[in-house]
């Protein structure tokens, strides 16, 4: 045991006690995180105690060179020195936060576990042809890639095919009345691979007194046992394997098509006058984790941010959640722009997600006449609309319902309703599980 052990335990405990992911998404401070680094607060001091309510408690301060007068702002109370050292009470300072950092991959994995999601990203665009295993072969190549095993096998086969029992053929020449022509014809019949020239040569070396040893070929085959090639190789050994150039093969790597898992996410937000602070915050709470999730899931994620009122325009991420404008609302303007911008990301090469959010208010007939057809025309893994209405429904706010009614039952369109932070996780689940069901 000892302090190292305590430190290790603290790290474990700290990890366990970081803010629960759902709680973090719904109520946590998302602003500390970066697009590629999710920071989830860990409460350092996590053993609770009976304490005074911080706001109700007030306190004592000391002015530096003068005393502030009643009514003067005094800033945030500072943690006090000595609040926790040397008196064996390190847990006294309240409310301090440290951050548990996770990258988007970990975030996506955790969210999968927490929500029971199962989204398998599809590989699309061919980014490179890499060399796989050396499984293909050619007839030429560098010596180092020569497939010697194959060469040897071929040579062996060739040898087996060419070898014959020389003694056996010679015995056939000793059959009464047979000359090379008869033996050759007979050997052919017996499928013995012997040339006519070899028989003539053997015949010329045959002593005359042996030419009538056998009265007939039947007698010869009966008395003389024919030795198989294998037996002979075993007896005499494999003296030479005939390697031939035509048997040479060179190994060559297989070409593998690597498909990158590309994703482009279009975030559309209604910034018109009716989108007040609370609604804006809800949009951020839904979109930001979706962005992290998809960043974590795909090899390469690109984001397009579109703000719209009656018109749409493209914005940078840092402005996206803050913009407010005056005008009316025409949601189709955003989809028109999205269609145009998505041309850079061909459907054959890119996974596409088109997320829109707003309070469901739209100019009359725009949803039915323009938005829905556009949504159908823009191929995407998923279209989603997130309605943020903190105070229930406004009368004319029917965009979400219309979209939902039209696409009901299809699995590439999701509609989610968020009235407060407590709905955020459900909304994220609705959106992400819609595509997951597709699998």
């Amino acid at each position, binding site marked *: 045991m000892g*302090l190292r052990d305590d430190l290790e335990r603290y790290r474990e405990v700290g990890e366990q006690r970081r803010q629960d992911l759902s709680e973090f998404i719904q109520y946590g401070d998302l602003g500390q995180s970066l697009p590629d680094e999710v920071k989830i607060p860990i409460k350092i001091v996590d*053993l*609770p*105690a009976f304490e005074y309510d911080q706001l109700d408690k007030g306190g004592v301060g*000391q002015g*530096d060179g003068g005393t502030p007068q*009643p009514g*003067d702002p005094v800033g945030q109370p500072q943690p006090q020195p000595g609040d926790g050292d040397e008196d064996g009470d*390190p847990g006294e300072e309240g409310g301090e936060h440290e951050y548990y950092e996770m990258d988007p991959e970990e975030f996506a994995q955790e969210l999968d576990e927490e929500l029971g999601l199962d989204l398998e990203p599809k590989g699309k665009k061919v980014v490179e042809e890499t060399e796989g295993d050396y499984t293909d072969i050619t007839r030429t190549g560098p010596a180092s890639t020569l497939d010697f095993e194959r060469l040897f096998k071929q040579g062996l086969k060739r040898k087996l095919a060419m070898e014959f029992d020389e003694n056996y053929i010679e015995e056939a020449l000793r059959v009464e009345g047979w000359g090379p022509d008869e033996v050759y014809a007979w050997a052919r019949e017996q499928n013995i691979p012997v040339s006519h020239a070899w028989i003539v040569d053997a015949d010329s070396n045959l002593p005359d007194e042996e030419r009538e040893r056998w009265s007939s070929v039947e007698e010869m085959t009966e008395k003389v046992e024919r030795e198989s090639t294998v037996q002979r190789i075993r007896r005499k050994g494999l003296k030479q394997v005939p390697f031939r150039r035509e048997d040479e093969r060179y190994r060559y790597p297989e070409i593998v098509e690597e498909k990158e898992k590309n994703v482009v996410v279009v975030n559309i937000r209604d910034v018109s006058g009716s989108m007040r602070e609370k609604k804006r915050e809800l949009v951020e709470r839904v979109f930001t984790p979706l962005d992290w999730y998809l960043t974590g899931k795909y090899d390469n994620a690109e984001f397009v941010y579109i703000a719209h009122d009656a018109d749409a325009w493209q914005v940078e991420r840092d402005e996206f959640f803050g913009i407010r404008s005056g005008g009316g609302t025409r949601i189709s303007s955003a989809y028109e722009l999205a269609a145009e911008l998505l041309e850079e990301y061909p459907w054959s090469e890119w996974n596409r997600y088109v997320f829109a959010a707003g309070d469901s208010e739209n100019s009359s007939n725009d949803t039915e006449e323009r938005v829905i057809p556009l949504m159908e025309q823009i191929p995407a893994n998923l279209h989603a609309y997130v309605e943020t209405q903190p105070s229930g429904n406004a009368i004319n706010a029917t965009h979400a319902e219309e979209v939902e009614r039209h696409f009901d039952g299809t699995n590439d369109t999701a509609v989610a309703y968020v009235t407060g932070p407590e709905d955020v996780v459900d909304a994220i689940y609705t959106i992400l599980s819609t595509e997951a069901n597709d699998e």
Partner: protein
Amino acid sequence: MSDTDTERRRKQRIAEGLEEPVREANALARKLGLDPFPVTYWIIDYDEMNELIAYGGFQERYPHWRWGMSYDRQQKQNQFLGGKAFEIVNNDNPSHAFLQESNALADQKAVITHVEAHADFFKNNQWFGLFADDPNAAAMLANHADTIESYMDDPEVDREAVEEWIDHVLCLEDCIDQHRPFSTIDGDQPHRELEDIADRLDSLGLSEEVRRQVFDEEWLESQRPEEESGSFPAEPDPDVLSFLRRHGMAYDEESGRAVEYEDWQRETLELLRREAYYFAPQKMTKVMNEGWAAYWESMMMGEEGFAEADEFIHYADHQAQVLNSPGFNPYKLGKELWEYIENATNRREVAETLLRVEGVTWRNFHDRVDLDEVRAALEPDAMLDRLGAATLDELDPDDPRVDAEALESARAGDVDVDRYPWKVLSYEGLCERHYSLVKPQHRGFLKRLTQSDLERIARYMFDDARYASVEEALANVDRCAGWNRMREIRESHNDVTFLDEFLSQEFVEQNHYFTYEFTHTTRDYRATSTAVEDVKKKLMLQFTNFGKPTVVVEDANYNNRNELLLSHQYNGVMLDQRQARQVLERVFELWGRPVNLKTIVKQLDDHDVEVARRRDREPVPEEVGVLVRYDGDSISSEELPWEAVEHLAATDVDYDTKPDEWLA
């Protein structure tokens, strides 16, 4: 701490260099009137220092993640601040103090002087006596560590379960009765009272027969407190830990029932409770104790030249860093208050003496006495400033300000008077040499003496014509009054009584203290008052009961169902509701049955806040009684009629310091 030989030799060398400062600091402290426990100093390296800090100043603690947490924080802090000099000293007899080998000599000296003052405080403050007169904390804590480690190693016991149990108990570590001496709760005797009665019967020397007939087992049993009567405990018990130790049960997940504590659970609870009592005095005297150490450190280091000239800048720099951190600093408050007490006592002594001059009364005081002249007359004898080997001849061994024995050795050349001039002076001599009212930083203090101060002092005075002249009176001013009083105060006070008694409007103004509150109008913190009553109230809130709300055991048979009822003794500041609920969930684990908490909350409805804001006023919240209940599964909360919580509401103090005219 296992060291290699080289390390040990290095530390040895450093230790040798520090022998003289250690010896002389102790001698100086004693000369100044302090009476410290003997201190054993240890030289340790940077890592060891970090470990000690993480362990709350001790070498061995039970295994727990929170030490790891503070170690982690310590390391991160050091990255930013650079390892600075720390002083660690344990309340033990002898005290143990630790010096980091890499510190500069000036830092070591500062730490040593600081430590001597702490050791004096440990020995003489009565609150430290509550735990034990001769504590051996290091051994106790190491012992606890061994015990808990053995539970964790026990194959029958789940390590995680032990750790969790510790967590549960630690949530209540401040729920003890820190104003009473610590006493151990013995093994398996939940009813001490019963033992006592039996003991007392024994001591009466009754015959066995009388005992058997009159005071039989049945009678004895009937003396057992009535647990069923609905009023158990009879009085609300502030020592929640002790109550749980005696009557708590564990919740058994499998059977879904409350079961007796396992031995390890009972023992762990008891030893954590013991540690809470051990650390309580330190928490209760943080302002006083740290202020005391800072005061004497600066007296010895700065004014008595314990830091040599070339070290002084380094020291001053360090001192400034410790005391001048922004905002409210309890150490600084302590040091300032000690200085204020010293000055105020000395001023009072001067005033009393002068009021004894014939013809001087509180009414004509300012006409008859010129306080600037008084101040000039109180300057220490110039001879005391010029002390050195060269001026030894000027000293008179019969002068009470002179240490005759030391003077003799000094004249024989055995004392380095140039280096340690204080050696030839007595306590009285040092009082005069460091007399506070004439110091430049306290210029003006004497002159703030008002007529109403004088009237108050004069009211209890007899014998008011002792001296014929102001000069004669001034010659009789006791310059030791300040230090004498300070030592008295350090014996009997704790932070709460210290602040309550000595904080004054003059002090608050001179040191720029003020109170602040969160205001709903502006949604931020605003200064609310500079009046001493308000500052005192807020400080009381911060230091009473470790700065925590008081929660007591009110009923252990709540609703006649053996449920536990805790009560929050509401003083006008409400509980942090979220944490209170979390604690309640943990109390359940220690009680084994449903637990309840009665409290009072302040409710503000959004509409009222909005209306008040428009009128630029602070909304006035409504106080409502609430019962929070945790049954092992879920938290529920219900509003209570006011009668049910009325007894919990304090009526005497209003901790809210917002000006009345702000309220809606």
